[in-house]
Structures are given as C-alpha cells and as structure tokens.
C-alpha cells in the first residue's frame, strides 16, 4: 500500500489578537476560576478579513515552496468551513483563483461544524489511496471566523456568553495531502468514527451562533470515549497511554481538553490524579500551545493542535500522534499518524510561532468597536467597499507581507487584493 498523509501544513491565525484575560477582567468574570480554562489569546478577524482571505493566507506559503510542476498536481481543493459566504458557490472557487491553481482540479466545500477539517482531510486521504490520479496532491483548507452576534432569547438554546466570547477565535489551517507524507504519515485504516443527532451548538441563522454549553461538553466527552472505543476495536493491541506519544484534541479551549483527557485517563487507563496530570503535561500540552493563542478556530482546531504538537514535541525518535476531532451536531473521529524528526524540521522552517508573535495586539476599545459590528459585512451583502482602516495598527503590521484582503463586494462577487 502507498504511504499517505500530510506533506506540509501551515496555519493562519489572523493579523490581530486579543488578550482574553484582559477580556475576562473587562467582563467581570471570576478570574480565579477562569484560569482553569487555560485560555490566553484569541484571534479576531477584521472586517477586511473573511474565510477566503484566511484560507488563502494559510495556503500561499505552502504553494510558494512547490515547483510549478508540483503545484500543477493539486487536483483536489476541499474547503472545510461553517463560515460559508454563499449557499451555492463554494469558497474553494475563490481560493483556487487567488492561489492560481491548475484548472484540472475538483473544487468544493464541506460542512460538519468543527469536524469539517477532519472530514475534508479523510476524503483527501482516500483520494490519494484510491489512486484516482496517481501522483496527484490534494489541498485541504479548514477556515473559520467567529460570528459577531449571539442569538438571543429562547429556552435551552442560548449562548453561555461568558465562555463563548473568550474562546471563539478565527483561523485557518492549510494542508497538502499526498503520497509524500513528510510531516504526518497516516495510520491507514486506523479510524474510529462516531456520530449522532444532537442540538448542542449550531449556526441556525446568518452571522450568529447559538448553543448549549453543557450539552456540547457532554456530547464531546461521550464522543471522545466512543470514537476511541471504535478505534480500539479496529486496531489490534492498542493502548491509550502507550501507543500514542502525543495526543492532539479538538480544542475549543484548553480547560475542555484537560477535562476530556482526565476523563479518558480515569476511564480507560484507570490512572490516579497525579499520573493524569503528568501525562497531560507530557502528551497533551505541546498541542495546546498554539491553540491557546488563537481560540477555537472550529474546523481547523484539531490540526492547529497537531501543528503545535509537531513544533513543540520531541521527535528525536519517530512518534505516533493520536488525534481526536469533534464537531457539534454531531460527528467525531479518533485517528493517528507518525511524525518524524524530518517532519518537525520541515514544519519549523515555516516559523509558525513567529506568525503568532507578529500579530497586532488589539486594545479593548478596538475590540469592542469590532464586536459592535464596526465595518463588519453581513451575510448576503450585495455591494460594499471595505474600510481597511477600522484598526489602523493591524493594517500597518500586515504591510510588506504577502497577504490577501477583501477589497470590495460588487453584485455579490467578492474582490480581493494582495496587501502591498
């Protein structure tokens, strides 16, 4: 069987971020208990940034490293998102255009809340394994931004705003999937998937989100156990503690992952509290590092955690990473792959941590202005020209970088330009 997996991956975590502890104080949240949630920063999308610019800005550095002949072998472009801008035309069409990809390429978009990235990834893996077009590559991009406003009223479905606001981020992860898995070699056939209908969190109207925090957390925990249980059934001799040197979780926020890991270690491994804490630091924390700086980026979050694990883990010996993906509604999956030193060296050349460090630090008044919808465009906007100077400092920081921004919308058609 041919090898398959991630040839290269890159993240885009916005051009501006907010310090969420500052936000917690500003909102008068109980900061002592807030610390247990393990959140640090969150990326905030500016009005001239949308799921398309996030996706293109994540993918461009990967494509720039390919030769023209290699780039021409990208024959499948899947965008994974719950932040769609049109019910019919997929985001992939815009991305394909601005990345100047080969026209002999399949273009579409898929949705299943935060599981979308994994859904796209698995479809791409199957495209390579099926040998539909030997030697071809797939580009999978998970891209999402938080919606600005909360659905108000109702009985069960209302947002636990105190959690949702600090955890809701924005970000994109782009991955080249091919038969040269330099970065993450997939354990083919080692997949445990689990899904059922539940109304935990959703986007039932344009420009807004709703959810039930307790239901969502319980569903996540149930899926974590059941998806792994299915993986265990299919893979002989697997051991939750010994088989995976690292674990990358879908990370709405660190505290949730810590809770899920604790539950799994208690139930599956029968571990004592001290042992659980040490295991968390060893196997899980490397994957939290980047996630804690962007917030929940939905479809791409599990891959943000994987990118963080690869950059921050120890891969002197090749190591297996177990990945758990969960998307509300719901569908989930546990799968795994191997990361080597070579993969880590390649990934570190992209300088992901630098891209996080180089973002603009939003002040609370700047953030409040964005939250109140200053300059934001609503779903279905027909004509508008974007104000790029809502946060002048953030625009200035992006200058000189190869970054795409949304310039205007003309008869629903979005027009983008590169920041000079």
């Amino acid at each position, binding site marked *: 069987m041919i090898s398959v997996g991630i040839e290269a991956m890159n993240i885009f975590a916005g051009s501006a971020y907010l310090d969420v502890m500052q936000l917690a104080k500003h909102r008068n949240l109980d900061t002592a208990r807030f610390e*247990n*949630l393990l959140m640090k920063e969150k990326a905030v999308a500016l009005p001239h940034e949308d799921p398309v610019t996030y996706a293109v800005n994540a993918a461009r550095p990967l494509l720039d490293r390919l030769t023209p002949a290699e780039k021409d072998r990208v024959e499948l472009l899947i965008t994974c998102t719950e932040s769609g801008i049109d019910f019919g035309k997929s985001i992939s069409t815009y991305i394909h255009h601005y990345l100047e990809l080969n026209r002999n390429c399949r273009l579409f978009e898929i949705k299943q809340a935060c599981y979308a990235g994994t859904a796209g990834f698995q479809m791409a893996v199957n495209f390579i394994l099926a040998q539909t077009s030997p030697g071809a590559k797939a580009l999978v991009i998970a891209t999402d931004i938080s919606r600005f406003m909360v659905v108000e009223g109702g009985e069960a479905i209302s947002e636990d705003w105190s959690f949702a606001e600090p955890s809701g981020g924005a970000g994109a992860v782009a991955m080249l999937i091919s038969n040269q898995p330099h970065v993450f070699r997939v354990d083919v056939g080692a997949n445990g998937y689990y899904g059922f209908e539940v109304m935990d969190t959703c986007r039932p109207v344009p420009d807004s989100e709703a959810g039930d925090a*307790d*239901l969502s957390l*319980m569903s996540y*925990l149930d899926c974590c156990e*059941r998806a792994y249980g299915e993986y265990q059934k299919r893979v002989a001799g697997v051991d939750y503690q010994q088989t995976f040197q690292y674990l990358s979780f879908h990370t709405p926020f660190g*505290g949730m992952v810590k809770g899920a890991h604790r539950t799994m270690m208690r139930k599956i491994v029968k571990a004592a509290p001290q042992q659980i804490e040490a295991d968390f630091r060893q196997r899980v924390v490397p994957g939290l590092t980047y996630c804690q700086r962007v917030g929940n980026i939905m479809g791409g979050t599990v891959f943000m955690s994987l990118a963080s694990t690869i950059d921050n883990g120890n891969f002197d010996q090749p190591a297996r990473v177990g990945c758990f993906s969960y998307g509300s509604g719901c569908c989930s999956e546990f799968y795994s792959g191997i990361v080597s030193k070579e993969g880590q060296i390649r990934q570190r050349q992209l300088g992901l941590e630098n891209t996080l460090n180089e973002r603009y630090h939003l002040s609370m008044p700047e953030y409040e202005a964005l939250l109140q919808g200053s300059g934001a465009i609503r779903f279905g906007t027909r004509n508008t020209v974007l104000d790029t100077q809502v946060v002048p400092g953030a625009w200035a920081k992006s200058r000189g970088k190869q970054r795409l921004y949304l310039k205007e919308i003309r008869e629903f058609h979005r027009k983008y330009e590169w920041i000079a």
Partner: protein
Amino acid sequence: MNVEEIFQVIVQHTREIIPELEEHAFRFNDQLKELGANSIDRAEIIALTMDSLSIQVPMLDLSGAQNMGELATLFHEKL
C-alpha cells in the same frame, strides 16, 4: 441507593471540585451553576458521580437536570 443518598454523593464530589463549598448547606433546589461551577466543573461532578455509582451510560443521558435534586433523580433512574 435512594435519591437522598445519591444526592449526598453529588454533594461530596461538588465539594471536591469546589472546596469553597465545604461549609455550604446543600439543598435539592441548588443549581451547580449558581454555586459557581462552570460547565467543565459540572461535567466533572457528573463524571465522578457516575464512577462512584458505577453507572455506565452516555453522559448525554444525564443532561437536562435543572437543579441538584433533579440530577440525583436522573442518576437514580439509571441505577
């Protein structure tokens, strides 16, 4: 085990998670949220109670209780 005994197990685990409630006199109509338990804390209290009672059902089957007494009743139905 009756509902009152289950309620005491929930109280014990609530105190483990939120030590500040050591002196609190728990009542059936207390809401964990109002006592300062966030959703992570609430899920952990339920998980620990499930362990103590050796109940193995999906956590989602234990959702929807409006207060600690209702939660104890839900657990009782699963025994």
